[in-house]
């Protein structure tokens, strides 16, 4: 129950996980939902409350300045910091056209800024 006495709402995130060479698997996590939250807020909530190994890129958190948190949300490429979290099931997957490193973390650096 939240403070208004309503049943607490949750967002259900079905997240593609794994590293290259493994069969991709999905995991479903429930995240408490508050109006106005972003998908990135939900992913960060999972890391600090549930599973710190969940990998995704972000830097500026909420400013849409670093442009690092791009991923597939319900099949559409979006920034996780500007996509609204919703009180329903949402599908989260890594960018399909970038090299997968782990979970939602993909190689997006320009090729001449990579180590090798």
């Amino acid at each position, binding site marked *: 129950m939240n403070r208004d006495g309503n049943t607490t709402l949750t967002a259900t995130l079905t997240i593609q996980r794994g*590293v290259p060479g493994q069969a991709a698997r999905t995991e479903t996590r429930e995240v408490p939902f*508050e*109006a*106005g*939250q*972003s998908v990135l807020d939900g992913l*960060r909530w999972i*890391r*600090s*409350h549930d599973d*710190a*190994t*969940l*990998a*995704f890129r*972000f*830097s*500026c*958190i*909420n*400013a*849409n*300045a*670093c*442009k*690092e948190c791009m991923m597939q949300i319900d099949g559409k490429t979006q*920034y996780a*910091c*500007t*996509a*609204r979290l919703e009180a329903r099931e949402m599908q989260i997957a890594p960018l399909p056209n970038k090299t997968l*490193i*782990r979970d939602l*973390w993909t*190689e*997006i*650096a320009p090729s*001449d*800024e*990579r*180590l*090798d």
Partner: protein
Amino acid sequence: MHIETDVLIIGAGGAGMYAAIEAARRGAQVVLLDRSLIGRGGATVMAQMTVAAAVGEQTPDHWEHHLADTLKAGRGLCDPALSRLLCEEGVECIREMDAWGVGWARVPAADDAPPKGLRAVMAPGHDRARCVYVDFLNTGPAVSRTLRTQVIRTPGIRRVGDLVVTDLAMREGRCAGAIAMHAPTSKVVSIAAKATIVATGGLTRLYRRNSASVNMGGDGYALALRAGAELIDMEFVQFFPIGHLAPRLIGMDPIMWDPFRYKLGGRLLNGEMQEFTERYGMAESGTYIVTRDLATYAITKEVEAGRGSPHGGAYLSFQHCDAAELRAAFGPVIARLAKQGIDLTRDAIEVAPIAHYHMGGVRVDTRMATAVPGLYAAGEAVGGANGANRLSGNAITEAFAFGRAAGRSAAAAVAKPGVAPWDGALSVAEAALAGGVVRTLPFNPAEMLVKLQALMADDVGPFRTAAGLTRALEQLSAMRATLGEFPPRAGDSFDAARLDWLDLRNMLLVAETVARAALLRNESRGAHQREDHPGLEAHWAVNQVVTLKAGALGITQRPVPQAQEAHA
């Protein structure tokens, strides 16, 4: 993997990129690295406005006036030589950025007239309109993009992203480069350099509500301290008074209301919709003149007195502005707000103080050289130029001027004959810290980070007491014990838990320097307010210098450097 270079720059924000350009155009080979992507992480890209410099094209000005305002804001603790460097060289950097096409706003000209000079706005603490900017809320992105383009155009700079420095490599009393972990592969990388510049920004990620990116956990302070450098003024964390609080906005920086206030004034109101800053010594009356420390104090005290806004802050209202005025000042931003259900002609939003900038940092001279041979610092990572409270608009100027100075000094140093480069051999401990050890963490490091941010906000925020600071130090000590000696290693790929562990190692050390320095300073000055010592004390007009020796932090008080007569 091993890399060799003349100059290594850690951090690719404004200071690091300017340092790279300057060192390379003076002939040095440069490696510019960042734990995030080059020119995307850090604080610079998030700056929305403004940049203070006495360019004097709209209103006559001179850097000496800017210096006087900077020293006054610093409440007696600035190193005047560093402040002068910021104000004097800052002007040249603003003009160089203009030549590179950053797009500073210009004074509007008549249709057929040639474009006029750089436009400047008034900001709190300045004696005249002195702050340049790029419309709309675009200063940081424009600055980052411009510097990134110049970095790419300047021969001799190798850029490497996603590289997390775990320690500086100290060899025979010198900084010989750095040891890093390559985030996507978890590979250990050694980088040998004749000169190393720490340009990692500040520490605002230590706080629950902050305007920082995840890169601002004070890594550079911890790296420098462990290498034997000194830190200065660590107790002075600037809280930005009107960080966005409610309603929740997505994809907007919490500092966004600052430029609205520069352009349109705006009214700060308490929960009873009354102006209140005059109760704390300064009336606003629709203008934007109250300094950051005073506004933070006023909002916090109104909330404590039960007169806060519903989410525990103050209201900020632009209801006196009509729609056309708002649109003229903020163009596309008005539409972005409308999409999130906010109409400023009708709605007051809620704001509250938010950790924004750190005045303290690595102690350097005007060459940006630290006490460690071969080690330099630049930008927000440097302490001393802003004393106890930073003047609005000085952060980007500092990034430019100090970045340029550090690049210049590093290039001069590497041009001299030096010792043979480090071969990249690591001690067992260095390798384990960068590479991790196979172990299962008995705690969730992401959860510990959230707890750390909560305890810093509650007990080491803008208002402090001996009891709260002591409680914080006890908790920090317990967290350090829980953290353990070496990070975990899960495999040969990106490892989010290990990155948190490495961040915690640095953040817990840096948090302790802030809390210890704050506990010693039994007075209130600028951004450091002790509720149990409310007045400013003349004998506390000293800097506190932090060192780390044999694992123990030491703090000493030193007289504030005095201004030297300018050499002809």
